[in-house]
């Protein structure tokens, strides 16, 4: 049974002793050490103290590992490998000391566990000598632990719901978001009931039916009626959830042609690591893009042959009029991104080479939301939810929901994409492409 034999234990104690004696020395040393490090001479002083010092000079990782091992075995660590002047990383020796301390803590915890293990062993031995059992008392212990686990666990779930749940649930600020939230709540109620009941069963049975030497388990291989019941009941509950979910989903994603036309169209384009927002201008139509037309000036590759693009406006942020349906056309210049506005319950991936859409109606203005939350700096925010590289964690755009008048006022100030410079560039390209066409015609004729 002994996972640490007696002799091992002695060694462990000796080691702890040595280390604990050397601790004050190390601390003293660490306090003296200045940030410039490279304290090679002091390394030779005390065996253990050598570790932090000499590894600070040697930048390779193996040195740390081997030296800390050397420290625990308390053999005078060899300070010979110190002067490897690779000099790439020169760190405060305190860093190594701290690291060493952390390892030491882990080690001491292990020792503690070993000691407790020993004590348990002795305890079991006395039980055995007194003719008491050494197996079932452990089963009792675990049965009780499971009960404790059940009670504490259920309280923990309640606490999480009450605290973290309250912290994470904000009212949806869109029409469909409210429906999603209703579904969410229904699902939460059902799953919580199942979670609680099954865990009462699981841990409760574990508590109640712990092994005793006298009892024999009840031979109960199957019961078709019960099995049918608990196949059919989840099936029915899930059918309800499926139908509810299916219709909610269709109502969100399956927008009629007419509703599509009536919505405000905007385009959001993702790239590493920013979003560009394009408003359609007076004609209400977003111009086509062709990625081959991308130039430093025309970074979206807008195709100005399509005249609907001429009045397209660049939005510095996403500003939306309240209670008006918006159809967002989502695309990406480079890799996958995801257009995600948590408060709106809106998400759709931005896929290069493909347009995706999400139509929704914001119902709460930013001002109203601020009032509701009592947080006057609060903003709706759009963020990227699909891994897209080093800047993934900070790819945001503020979303502002305002009244219709504010929206119009804001929109009037937004610049056009088709700037003077772009116009020139476009005309130049027109000329050259006309020349190309002409050339082709000539070639065709010649052939």
């Amino acid at each position: 049974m002994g996972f640490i034999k007696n002799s091992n234990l002695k060694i462990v104690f000796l080691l702890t002793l040595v280390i604990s004696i050397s601790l004050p020395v190390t601390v003293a040393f660490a306090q003296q050490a200045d940030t410039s490090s490279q304290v090679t001479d002091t390394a030779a002083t005390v065996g253990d103290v050598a570790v932090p010092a000499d590894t600070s000079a040697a930048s390779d990782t193996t040195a740390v590992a081997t030296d800390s091992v050397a420290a625990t075995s308390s053999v005078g660590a060899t300070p010979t490998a110190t002067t490897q002047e690779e000099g790439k990383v020169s760190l405060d020796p305190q860093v190594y000391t701290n690291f060493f301390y952390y390892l030491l803590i882990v080690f001491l915890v292990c020792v503690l566990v070993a000691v407790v293990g020993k004590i348990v062993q002795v305890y079991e031995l006395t039980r055995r000598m007194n003719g008491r059992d050494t197996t079932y008392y452990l089963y009792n212990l675990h049965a009780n632990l499971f009960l404790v686990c059940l009670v504490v666990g259920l309280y923990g779930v309640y606490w999480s719901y009450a605290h973290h749940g309250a912290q994470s649930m904000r009212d949806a600020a869109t029409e469909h978001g409210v429906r999603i939230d209703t579904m969410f709540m229904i699902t939460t109620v059902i799953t919580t009931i199942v979670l609680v009941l099954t865990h009462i069963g699981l841990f409760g049975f574990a508590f109640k039916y712990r092994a005793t030497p006298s009892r024999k388990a009840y031979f109960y291989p199957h019961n078709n009626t019960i099995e049918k019941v608990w196949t059919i009941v989840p099936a029915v509950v899930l059918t309800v959830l499926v139908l509810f979910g299916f219709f909610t989903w269709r109502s969100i994603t399956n927008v009629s042609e007419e509703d599509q036309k009536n919505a405000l169209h905007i385009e959001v384009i993702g790239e590493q690591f920013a979003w560009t927002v394009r408003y359609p201008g007076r004609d209400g139509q977003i111009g086509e893009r062709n990625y081959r037309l991308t130039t430093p000036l025309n970074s979206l590759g807008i195709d100005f042959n399509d005249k609907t693009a001429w009045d397209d406006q660049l939005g510095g942020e996403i500003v939306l009029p309240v209670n008006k349906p918006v159809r967002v056309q989502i695309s990406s210049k480079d890799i996958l991104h995801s257009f995600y506005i948590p408060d709106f319950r809106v998400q759709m991936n931005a896929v290069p080479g493909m347009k995706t859409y999400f139509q929704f109606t914001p119902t709460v203005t930013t001002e109203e939301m601020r009032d509701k939350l009592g947080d006057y700096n609060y903003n709706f925010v759009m963020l990227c939810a699909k891994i897209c590289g080093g800047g993934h964690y900070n790819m945001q755009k503020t979303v502002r929901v305002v009244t219709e008048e504010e929206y119009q006022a804001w929109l009037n100030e937004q610049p056009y994409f088709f700037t003077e410079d772009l116009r020139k560039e476009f005309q130049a390209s027109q000329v050259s492409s006309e020349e190309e066409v002409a050339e082709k015609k000539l070639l065709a004729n010649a052939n």
Partner: protein
Amino acid sequence: MSTIANAGTHSVDHHGDHGHHHESFWTKYVFSQDHKMIAKQFLITGIIMAVVAMLLSILFRIQLAWPDKEFPILEVFLGKWAEGGRINPEFFLALVTIHGTIMVFFVLTAGLSGTFANLLIPYQLGARDMASPFMNMLSYWFFFVACIIMIASFFVESGPASAGWTIYPPLSAVPKAISGSATGMTLWLISMTLFIASQVLGGTNYISTVLNMRTKGMDLWKMPLTIWALFLTAIVGLLSFPVLVSAVVLLIFDRSFGTSFYLSDLVVQGQILPNEGGSPILFQHLFWFLGHPEVYIVLMPALGLTSEVISTNSRKPIFGYHAMVYSLIGITILSFIVWGHHMFVTGMNPFLGGVFMITTLIIAVPSAVKVFNYLATLWRGNIRFTPAMLFAIGMVSFFISGGLTGIYLGNSALDISLHDTYFVVAHFHLVMGSASIFGMLCGVYHWFPKLFGRMMNEKLGYLHFWLTFIGAYLVFFPMHFMGIDGVPRRYYAFTEFPFMEKWISVNVFVTWAAIVAAVGQLAFIWNFFSSIWSGKRATQNPWGSNTLEWTTPVEHIHGNWPGEIPTVYRWPYDYSKPGHHEDFIPQTVPFSETMSSNLPHDFEGNAEAERIQREWELANNNPQTEKETE
């Protein structure tokens, strides 16, 4: 069919000549073709990979908890990836990616079903070895090389793959977009291809062994649930892994040979790429056609192992054996038609999303049946809390709590705002991460005597269980709420958004829980490796178990059984059968030796046997009806 095959294996008479094999170190421990040794190889490699992946997770947990703090020691270990003691954002993604890849594929696929399929299929079916031992050996060595290559990707200049374990192109296809998509990604793809080769070799072997090499009397309905689970897992793997090969090969073409399967209309950092006409969605379809069955490849062996352990340690037959098998079969079939639920908002046709939602939620029914059957098995049992049993109970708990959140994510309407958030992280870490690893650990504690002929230390096992069980809940439960709040996964820091700041303190808590749980694994590592050499010697059947593996000698021998392969007469779950003097009856005990405990349905309609039983009962004045009403 099986009897014919068995006649074949019996006549080969392996067992007579095991003394003649003069095995060198190389043939015994390294290039072994023995299923028991290969199981150990898979297990130990799996454990080492698990430790690596766990350390990676601690690294990124540290970053998440203290995004503004410097940890100069990290620079010592990670060099330029943690300049100034702060993990670089791209390296953070690499950590997440490799953590996921190793855990899902190398630990929970190969480490779990590789270990236990190899160990248990021949043992519990009464076979001398696998159908093709050489293929079996190749399976391990492909896996091993895959591991080496995956680890090696940490040592290339541009860093390991960092496009997430799902390696969605174009991010994974364009090195310009992220440095990990250069050599690191190539190594990832090579490693995965080898890994899949390993899985296919292994899977073919498992399936053919189960179908052809069962001992006399072992019909399909007498197989333990472990075998059912491993068998169905192998089928799922064999059907789905090749699809990942196609995804990977096409990605290699896109990366290296200028094709455009997944790429179209790209302007990466100002440079227009020539690719045209491909679709990133295609990759997602191919990936998740493996990816979702993969979840069940990871989970089903764990379910199988826990079924066996719960039944053995409750001293009760598993409740509803047939229902358990049918739900496994149901999960197997359904697992192939639900992949689209990973793609509700990726630009897939929304109507298709609705269809996938329906199939997805149906899969909850067989899962629910399994849970209820587990509970019914515990009910009125005589539960022995061995470490294996604790882990089995923990597994059921995780399976419930993680499975329930699947009902949210499988619902396409709710998935809109939960997709790619921490809610997803919490969900799959509970249901597929924790549940599977608990199934695996439960298997290790339970079958350790069979693997190494020694017992593991119980007390350390208890400590390990409680630390891991509580730790896992503390780590993953709070993440649900971050997800509901809208915090996306794979975020390097929560510092850039005002609404995320409230979660930083939670992150600190989670990280500490993770560190404590990780340190707790030392109890296992120490216990495992020290018990190999100095554990208490095991007896032949330490758990009082019914299955065939416990009829083999403790000392491993070539061919498993020294004499004849035992014949099987009954199902594996005759625990605490009324009328029998012991609380278990091994599968090898014929009904003629247990006249006092036989039940009418034991004879499966064999009139002759029923007549004999009736006569015996009359003679012993012990009618069956009385016993049943007891």
